[in-house]
């Protein structure tokens, strides 16, 4: 069984479109994240949700809006896509709290904006 699953794996779209990426985890974790990995493989956190509540938003443009219908799901909706949004987006989950075990990542969604 896949612990953290994301769909789609690949997403190619044009500038100005709106798209969504879905993420689900079956680990029973309370905390979920979205990370962006740019073309230089630099990995940066975008959002963190704890039990459906946003607890961090690292200066991400308003065009990005996470939605967490329940603690097992954290979807990412992107409005008015721009060329600079092209990247690999990783969903992850973990247990909450200090000293918590590290992240479990999904397989990533490669977004290409043309």
């Amino acid at each position: 069984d896949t612990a953290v699953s994301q769909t789609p794996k690949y997403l190619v779209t044009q500038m100005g479109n709106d798209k969504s990426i879905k993420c689900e985890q079956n680990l029973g974790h309370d905390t979920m994240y979205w990370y962006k990995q740019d073309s230089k493989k630099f990995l940066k956190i975008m959002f963190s949700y704890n039990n459906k509540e946003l607890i961090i938003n690292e200066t991400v443009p308003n065009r990005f809006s996470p939605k967490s219908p329940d603690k097992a799901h954290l979807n990412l909706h992107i409005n008015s896509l721009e060329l600079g949004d092209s990247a690999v987006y990783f969903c992850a989950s973990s247990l909450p709290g200090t000293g918590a075990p590290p992240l479990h990542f999904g397989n990533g969604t490669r977004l290409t904006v043309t």
Partner: protein
Amino acid sequence: AQSVSQHNHHVILSEAASLELGCNYSYGGTVNLFWYVQYPGQHLQLLLKYFSGDPLVKGIKGFEAEFIKSKFSFNLRKPSVQWSDTAEYFCAVRSSSGSARQLTFGSGTQLTVLP
């Protein structure tokens, strides 16, 4: 704020060669340290972690890392690499009192092992 530096951007080795990837961090307090590996087209997987105790940590697939507090380093080593070790390796750090969301990643080192 904490930060992580991986000075080797791309390392190319032949099979059976020994590996050492550098990782240095900056943070004033006690830390937890991690190495993640990303095989081509796959997600990041935890290779090993250091929380406390013995500074020499052994991970999966024959990898190990040594935490040297005085040098703020957590270098990754493997005595003899295999072609299947070709991947991107990421070092990460967080405060030991921090949560997973405060994990800071380095920029990664691409390891290519030639058969």
